[in-house]
């Protein structure tokens, strides 16, 4: 297996706070990599740097053999790196179906002013996509009328519609009701595996991490404190104390 994304020595500080303090990370083709760590550790900053929203002050990011450090978001997307957002970024005046169609249009080329957005082919693709996410029932609703969990799913669906090779997800399950969480993640993972997408996701729920991640990276104060298979990393006492402690007061108990 080779690395799809290589980060080397990424550094970025906001004022005095070091959000990235020498990040080195390889993301392997077709793997699911979870990023965990306390709030403010720099997890989102990593996604922001990788997708071009923030420019690192030092270091390089290489994707599929080409350097993409500091490139504009849309150049990076066009190379096959998509992302979803912690706060869903939907077009609130459009329906869910139109949101998905806009993502398809972005992928296929948006520049023809004559054919409608909801042309039959795109409409069908959008509906198929929404169906896989279980969103078909709300396809005709305006995005600003949805509840938070549904918005979250729609947000990820739009990223998936871009048919990326690498998908970065910022807390895909936050805001989703606990009862629905596992079902949603299972759906998501199935969709991504089918499409053979490499995924990086920031996650706070250790159950999700344990069940779905191939590897897990632990963020702490702008550095990677630990990296490896979930079973190994989550068992590390230091990780349990610093990271998981916040999430699961009695590690292991909940599992039992």
């Amino acid at each position: 297996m080779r690395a799809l994304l290589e980060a080397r020595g990424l550094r970025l500080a906001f004022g005095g706070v070091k959000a990235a303090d020498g990040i080195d990370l390889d993301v392997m083709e077709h793997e699911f990599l979870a990023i965990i760590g306390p709030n403010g550790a720099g997890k989102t900053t990593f996604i922001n740097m990788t997708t071009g929203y923030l420019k690192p002050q030092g270091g390089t990011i290489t994707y599929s053999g080409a350097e993409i450090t500091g490139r504009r978001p849309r150049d990076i997307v066009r190379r096959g790196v998509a992302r979803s957002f912690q706060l869903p970024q939907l077009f609130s005046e459009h329906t869910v179906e139109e949101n998905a169609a806009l993502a398809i249009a972005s992928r296929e080329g948006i520049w023809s002013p004559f054919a409608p957005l909801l042309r039959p082919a795109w409409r069908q693709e959008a509906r198929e996509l929404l169906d896989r996410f279980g969103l078909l029932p709300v396809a005709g609703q305006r995005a600003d009328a949805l509840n938070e969990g549904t918005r979250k799913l729609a947000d990820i669906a739009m990223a998936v519609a871009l048919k990326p090779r690498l998908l970065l997800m910022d807390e895909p399950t936050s805001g989703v009701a606990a009862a629905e969480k596992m079902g949603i993640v299972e759906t998501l993972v199935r969709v991504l595996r089918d499409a053979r997408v490499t995924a990086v996701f920031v996650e706070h729920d250790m159950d999700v991490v344990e069940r779905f991640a191939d590897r897990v990276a632990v963020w702490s104060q702008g550095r990677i404190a630990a990296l490896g298979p979930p079973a190994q990393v989550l068992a590390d006492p230091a990780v349990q104390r610093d990271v998981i402690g916040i999430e699961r007061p009695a590690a292991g108990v909940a599992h039992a």
Partner: protein
Amino acid sequence: MGDWFEQNGALLGLALLDGIASAALIFMVAVGLNLVFGVLRVLNVAHGSLFAIGAYAAASIGLFFTSAGLPAWASLPALLLAAMIVGLVLGPLIERLLLRRIYSEEPVLQLLVTFALFMILEDAQKLVWGVQPVSFSAPVSLMGTVDVPFGADVIPYNTYQVILLPAIAVATLIGLALFLRRTLTGRVILAVTTDREAATAMGIDARKVYLLTFTFGAMLAALGGALSTPTASLVPGIGASTIVLSFAVVATAGLGQIEGAALTALMIGIGRSIAVTFQPELEVVVPYLIMVAVLLVRPQGLFGVVETRRV
């Protein structure tokens, strides 16, 4: 270059003096507009009307004082009084009756409400003060002139324009800066300017802040008008030309930035008077050229902060 300065240095000095005087007036009008924009996020086109009404009111009150036999020095407080009255009456009236109804609407609707108001007030002014030029120059005559040496010659300047106006502008700038940073109300206003949502979340009563800021902005507009009365004859339409200049100042300065408004006003005032001295045909486009140049380099305005959307 050295030669040029030798020949024109004295002229440049005169141009600076004129520029500072006109910058003072530009600042007084624009700072109120910028403050209101910073807090309410409404670009108030009617600010120009408030300027004009303040000016006309100052002339009326000034002339009334004179005819009532009050001493000449009373003409100065007359200007302030006019600004206070206009701001305190019209400010709350406009905010309560009109703006308050549309804060939740799209910005373009808010802009157009003030545009409609501007159109209405433009004709209302005519009903009250007629169309013949109105003037009240007692304060200028009262304060006399100062002679500025120019080679072997002297150039008389109005004390009112080169000393009193800049002094008032500087006092306003310092007073505003202190008020915003040192007082509780001021900090609340600043908080709403920087992050409206957070401020509201913290329990700040935005409505109160809006009312206060708008009234204050209206007073500053009226004061700008009142202070221009002694040197200018008032005619229909002065509001329209004032507001378009203030727009340029706000965009150049950065939203809500009072120091930005001061620096921009200085740049425009001095730029224009230098143009009058050396290349008069350029004078009228100076504010716009400055604005385009500044925004090319700093898209958020001179003192503006980049608003990053959290993702």
